[in-house]
């Protein structure tokens, strides 16, 4: 067997891998007809493959799938969330932004829980009601937070009452607009409106400047 060229064995394997060219196959066949040792070798290789392939296909135990399912890690909510977050970075960014934004908005609203009003020496406070007495004139806008307002005199600007009510007595006058804000939502709306208004004022004033 040792006398045979090494490449004959190589050809056998090429043949078994089904990667042999026609010429090589011819060469191999001619050689096998002449050489008894190589013939045996080739036969043994084929027998080996046949034996290995003859082993019966065994099947997995019947409870295999159930066992796998039992061993699977329970979908942890946290793990699931993390995976979800990883796959939706844009949404996470948007959510964080929204939370922070609304947080700051509500902080502005919630922080002003106390009774307050635009400082003015001309007004009188009765409990939680601010009274602008008859004959007095408050110059500019007037705001009351968490309290009521009774106008008997005069206000030359807008009047805003947050979380309260406003009465205008027969003799009282308000030159500007009167606005009552009662709820968080309205407060939000008001904040947006005034922000837009300020923006408008700003652009208008910059327009006139330029």
């Amino acid at each position, binding site marked *: 067997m040792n006398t045979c060229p090494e490449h004959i064995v190589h050809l056998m*394997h090429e043949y078994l891998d089904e990667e042999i060219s026609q010429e090589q196959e011819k060469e191999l066949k001619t050689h096998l007809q002449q050489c008894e040792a190589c013939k045996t070798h080739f036969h043994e290789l084929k027998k080996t493959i046949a*034996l290995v392939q003859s082993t019966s296909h065994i*099947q997995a135990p019947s409870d295999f799938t159930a066992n*796998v399912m039992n*061993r*699977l890690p329970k979908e942890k909510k946290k793990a699931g969330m993390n995976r979800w977050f990883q796959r939706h970075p844009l949404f996470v960014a948007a959510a964080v932004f929204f939370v922070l934004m609304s947080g700051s908005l509500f902080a502005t609203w919630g922080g002003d829980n106390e009774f307050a009003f635009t400082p003015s020496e001309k007004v009188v406070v009765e409990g939680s009601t601010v009274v602008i007495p008859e004959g007095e004139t408050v110059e500019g806008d007037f705001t009351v937070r968490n309290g009521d307002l009774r106008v008997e005199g005069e206000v030359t600007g807008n009047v805003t009452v947050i979380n309260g009510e406003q009465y205008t007595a027969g003799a009282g006058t308000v030159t500007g607009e009167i606005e009552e804000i009662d709820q968080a939502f309205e407060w939000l709306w008001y904040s947006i409106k005034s922000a837009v208004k300020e923006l408008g004022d700003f652009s208008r004033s910059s327009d006139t400047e330029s």
Partner: protein
Amino acid sequence: MELIVKKRIQQVLKGDQNAFGEIVELYKDRVYHVCFRMLGNRHEAEDIAQEAFIRAYTNIHTFDIDRKFSTWIFRIATNLCIDRIRKKKPDYYLDAEVAGTEGLTMYSQVESDEPLPEDKVESMELQESIQKEISLLPDKYRSVIVLKYIEELSLKEISEILDLPLGTVKTRIHRGREALRKQLRSI
């Protein structure tokens, strides 16, 4: 088949564990069989095959959905088998015979519980000796021979599963065949 698997994997990715059960059902026999031929022992084969599916589940998000799932699961399974073989037999090449027989003994113990018809005994014995010879192969030859002749996979697929160049796979198959030939000559 591939289409169904793709669909199931997408369901698993959405958190549906039951969809994974269907994937296991589709591949369990092939994966178990490969593990059994690699390890030569039913108990270990079941253990490793289950482990392979669990690893697949926990790493499912790293699976490239455009590739064949079978290639991926075989890759996980053969790697686990090779790890197990090396852990179990750190000096495998020195006392291959002892280690190989050990695996076989456990296998035959499991089998001896059920009575077999006379004619089956002979083929069982032949099967056992073939399995024993496969178990005697060094693990690098064993994995290629098992994938090639038990699973009947193409050389290209084997090279993907084992992450080896095609040339290396070929060489290992040639050497594995030669080694088996010498071992099985007497049968």
